[in-house]
């Protein structure tokens, strides 16, 4: 992986203001255009606009057409339409968790079971070169280089991530629907499930030297779940490439299931006929099922799943069925007993 210097990482507040910036520049250009009408004095468009972005308050009067026309001239990049304000919340209105929290509080047992230590232990993990082998019951097996995967049109997906341990975050991912990849390899009719495998590299992943778990990490989805548009392969978050602690260079994100289903650092994807046995199913079959859909009605045997702690909040909140994505995914489980298929 190309090492990213910390100075090159876009600070989260700048990421969050990425379109506010453009709005600010637009507004500034507009006011300058107005000023220019009164005074011949010219000033260069200052980058200082980022430090005092015009607040894109709701109901803000849009700049005049003349000012808008002036905007592209004032800055070197084309300004986005000022009416678009980048989301800083999920669709329920809850704010993103901070980049710092997302990248310093990780369950990634391949490195350690201590969440705050994953970032440090994973910092030198090699994520380039990287290949993902896609095969099994497909007509067109294919090995994708990580750069091939980045050629899929990358979308921003703002998802809630609900850990089985009853905490949650809101994360702005970049990635592409898993369905697009699966269509390229063309699953055979007998393919019913998708099996994912994390890289096995104990020399770089100290947690994999622990014999307690049956490495490598395996996860699975039913094919129709995998084809649902919400299921994505993520390659970035907060506008930059994934860091190793977040599952670089490519990971699954299935937002309606508990976090452990969203397998990290994938090297192998196989279409198979029967439900694969995941690492957690093997480790504790009575606690972790194949489906692992977020469900406030079905408790973990050892703790309640009715509520969760959104990281950064004082009070807990009620957990939503399918983590709030019931409308998009509940049909997948019509007629199924979700208590038995936990």
């Amino acid at each position, binding site marked *: 992986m190309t090492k990213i210097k910390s100075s090159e990482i876009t600070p989260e507040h700048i990421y969050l203001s990425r379109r506010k910036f453009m709005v600010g520049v637009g507004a500034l250009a507009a006011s300058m255009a107005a000023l220019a009408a009164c005074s011949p004095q010219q000033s260069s468009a200052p980058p200082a606009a980022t430090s005092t972005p015009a607040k894109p308050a709701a109901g803000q009067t849009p700049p005049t057409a003349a000012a808008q026309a002036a905007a592209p001239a004032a800055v070197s990049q084309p300004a986005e339409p000022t009416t678009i304000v980048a989301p800083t919340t999920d669709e329920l209105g809850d704010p993103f968790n901070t980049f710092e929290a997302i990248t310093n509080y990780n369950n990634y047992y391949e490195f350690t079971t201590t969440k705050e230590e994953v970032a440090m232990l994973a910092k030198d993990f090699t994520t380039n070169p990287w290949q993902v082998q896609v095969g099994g019951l497909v007509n067109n097996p294919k090995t994708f280089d990580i750069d091939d995967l980045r050629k899929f049109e990358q979308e921003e997906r703002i998802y809630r991530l609900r850990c089985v341990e009853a905490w949650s975050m809101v994360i702005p991912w970049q990635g592409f629907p898993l369905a697009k990849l699966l269509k390229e390899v063309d699953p055979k009719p007998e393919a019913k499930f998708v099996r994912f495998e994390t890289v096995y590299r104990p020399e770089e992943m100290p947690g994999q030297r*622990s014999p307690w778990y049956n490495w490598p990490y395996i996860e699975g989805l039913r094919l129709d779940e995998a084809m649902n548009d919400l299921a994505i392969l993520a390659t970035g978050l907060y506008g930059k490439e994934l860091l190793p602690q977040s599952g670089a260079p490519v990971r699954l994100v299935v937002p309606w299931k508990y976090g452990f289903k969203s397998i990290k650092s994938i090297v192998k994807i196989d279409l198979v006929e029967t439900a694969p046995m995941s690492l957690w199913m093997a480790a504790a079959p009575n606690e972790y099922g194949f489906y692992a859909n977020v469900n406030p009605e079905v408790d973990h045997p050892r703790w309640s799943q009715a509520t969760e702690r959104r990281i950064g909040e004082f009070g807990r909140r009620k957990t939503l069925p399918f983590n709030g994505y019931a409308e998009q995914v509940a049909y997948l489980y019509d007629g199924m007993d979700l208590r038995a298929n936990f």
Partner: protein
Amino acid sequence: MAKRKSSWTPLQIAVHVGAFVPLLLIVWNFWQGNMALLINPFQDVTFRTGKAALILLLLSLACTPLNIVFGWRQVLPLRKPLGLYAFMYGALHFLIFIVDNGYIGSSVDLMAVYEATFEKRFALVGFAALMILLPLAITSNQWSMRQLKKNWKRLHQLVYAAGILVIIHFIWLVKSDIREPLVYGAILALLLVVRIPLVRRFFVDLRSPKKNKPRIAADNA
């Protein structure tokens, strides 16, 4: 406290100072910017206070075996403060757990507290351990000893049960990998085994073989 019978020994001072180290560490690590503390403070402080309670309880239970095996009489007065501090951390641990589970949205949900405490076995055994330690903490004074006479010792032997419940609490809490609670469990088992009369006598005799030789001879006869 007002009328001290004797000045404190360095060991006692160490216990009273050391017992506040876990609390000070929370403050220090928070100030340092420890990620787990900053990002999920409820969970982290719950873990830390629970671990502190467990370690202090084991230390309290280690005093008698240390005296049996090594003849360190000076550790015996430490049982009480160590036990009391264990209770203090246990109570704090439970209090944070209650707030963590009971404060939902912006209101207090007592039903949620009830469910969190009594419907899951790991929480239930932890609560049971704390409820055992409560009367022990209340009666850990000279006056109660005089009032309860023989029963005081019987009552305070319940601490063994509390220790076992705390280990079970830990085992039932962790996800799959039970090695850490098993280490603590093994230490507890060791501390309890030394108290078995036969084992206790073995160690006492080992330390002063001459004094007890006739009895050993008699035993062997």
